[in-house]
């Protein structure tokens, strides 16, 4: 079977996801469950009804944003795995403005969203500055920032944002700072459109402006970029700031765009791991903002369907995250598909 060259990224991504599903199936089988039953429940849970489909999109919303964080980093030649921490602080920033600063309707929603994005971008500046001017390895510095952000965010949530009488979560967003729920049967809100819109804006920026071109050039060919007069520090800071804005929006979306809590749990339980999940989403989406949107729907389906899989077949939904890791692992091996193609061509 020969695939046209233009479709190759798509077929390779889908084949990798299939590979991940097969490996996950082996794990399910190894722990004494039926992979067929598990995946049937997963598919039904993700796409079975209109309600499920909307819930899948609700799960996809933060993922397309944290995927954007990683993707913009890779486009600039950087491994920004700090979406996790940037997202925590985005959630904290949004919670503060949405829950404690009363404002007129309309303005309030915008202000809370922007506060989340700004908090994420500010947190991203730490590894950006360390990378640009000290040469600090961004993988280590972003992971350290994630852990510091975890403790800082829990501290802020418990000491300054807690809802009186309810230790487990922060004050809920005021009604003026909540995205409208799109359908009463699911937790999907209009924040989905903001997420998709932001991804498209980033796409237009990276592929339509001079700064965006320079960023991609620096990632693809650092030497050529340097000869062309691109300043590497600027590229580092720019890509981290865009990534931080996206991650901050992802954190905000889970507070002001996700019923029923409309708040941040003190353990950060409603946002944790969404940042790491974005890595797989970005890779399957070929580090492209639009690809990331599509891949996020796929991973959102895994997350939503995983709940029914756990409920009906007893396979823990954590397995979905293990699957995600296997997919990332397989995406790292370019030779896999070259080898496979050669074998098929024979």
């Amino acid at each position, binding site marked *: 079977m020969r695939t046209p060259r233009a479709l190759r990224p798509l077929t390779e991504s889908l084949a990798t996801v299939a590979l991940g599903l097969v490996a996950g199936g082996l794990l399910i089988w190894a722990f004494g469950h039926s992979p067929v039953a598990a995946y049937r429940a997963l598919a039904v849970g993700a796409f079975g009804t209109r309600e499920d489909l909307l819930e899948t999109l609700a799960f996809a919303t933060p993922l397309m944003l944290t995927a954007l964080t990683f993707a913009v980093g890779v486009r600039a030649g950087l491994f920004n795995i700090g979406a996790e921490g940037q997202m925590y602080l985005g959630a904290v920033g949004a919670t503060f403005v949405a829950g404690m600063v009363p404002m007129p309707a309309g303005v309030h929603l915008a202000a809370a969203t922007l506060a989340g994005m700004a908090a994420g971008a500010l947190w991203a500046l730490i590894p950006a500055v360390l990378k640009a001017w000290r040469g600090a390895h961004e*993988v280590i*510095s972003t992971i*350290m920032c994630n852990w510091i952000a975890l*403790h800082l965010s829990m501290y802020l949530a418990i000491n300054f944002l807690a809802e009186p009488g309810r230790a487990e979560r922060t004050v809920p967003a005021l009604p003026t700072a909540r995205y409208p729920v799109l359908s009463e049967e699911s937790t999907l809100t209009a924040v989905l459109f903001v997420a998709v819109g932001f991804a498209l804006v980033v796409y237009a920026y990276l592929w339509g402006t001079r700064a965006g071109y320079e960023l991609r050039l620096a990632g693809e060919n650092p030497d050529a970029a340097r000869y062309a007069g691109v300043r590497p520090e600027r590229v580092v800071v720019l890509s981290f700031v865009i990534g931080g804005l996206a991650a901050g929006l992802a954190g905000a979306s889970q507070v002001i765009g996700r019923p029923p809590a409309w708040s941040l749990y003190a353990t950060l339980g409603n946002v944790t*791991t969404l940042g*790491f999940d974005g890595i797989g989403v970005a890779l399957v989406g070929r580090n492209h903002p639009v690809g990331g949107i599509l891949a996020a729907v796929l991973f959102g389906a895994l997350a939503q369907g995983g709940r029914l899989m756990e409920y009906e077949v007893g396979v823990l939904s954590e397995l979905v995250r293990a699957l995600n*890791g296997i997919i990332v692992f397989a995406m790292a091996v370019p030779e896999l598909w070259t080898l496979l193609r050669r074998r098929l061509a024979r």
Partner: protein
Amino acid sequence: MRWVWWLVAAAVLVGAPRLLERAGLPPVSLLETGLLAMTPLALAAVGECLNEKAGLVNIGLEAIFMVSATVAVWFAEVGRSGYTGLLGGAAVGALLGLGLGAVSVYGRADQIIAGMGLNVFALGFVPFLLISLWAFPGIHVFPNELMVPRVSTPVGQVSPVTLAAVALAVLAHLLLHRTVLGFRIRAVGEKPEAVDVAGLRVDRLRLLTATVGGALAGLGGAFLPLGWFGALVKEISAGRGFIALACVVFAGLEPLLALGAALLFGLADGFASAVAVTPGVKERVPFYFVAMIPYALTLGVVAAVIGRRRFPSTVGRPYARE
């Protein structure tokens, strides 16, 4: 510039115990905790020094810590001995290291992405494993007699694994700088084509260091529950895999310096846990800020030294014959 940091480290080493003593905490227990915290970092960092000398990078040390810790407790319970657990943890670490090495060498994988894949995998697989093995979410407490017993030394109660970590660091140093194999490992990181032309197998040398590095990280992971905490939690390593990577960079891939860096970070960890329980201090400093200390220190060290270390010329890049 570097000596400033050694001075700062020395000042912390001398000053911190004094401060703690005044706050009512004996420095011996700080050193004991520091040595415990040093052990997994030192093991993983020494192994990763070898691995990076040969030209590979393992960003998945964190995953090896997490998976090995979990599997080691299972091995300990099945074999009714903490030492069985340590062996099992090292074996699982070796397997994961070998797997990552194989995709890097034969699959020519992007090593950072493959390593992150392993980390994301562990993030989901370990909670899954915890419930699958013990039917309880997030935490598992095992019988106390499975703990690897500590031995008395002049510096307090020390785990035999700690002593092994120190010995392994010295051995790794001697291996790298005094043996033919060590020379080959360094050569394969600098000029793999020369090693290839000399008739040696580039792939086997790199698989060897990847496996040994994985085994040492696995031993470190097994040490976390069986030699230190006495229980298993789903995020048991809490970023230590990345702190070990920072030790490697700080040490410029030299095992003995990596041991020193691990001690520095271990003492910071010990200092943090001491502050968290010291009466009079713990009321004034929020726990959340104390918990940040090891990460903030790592961030500071990474910012201070990296960029001026020289790495093998092919580190992180796959080798292919022309």
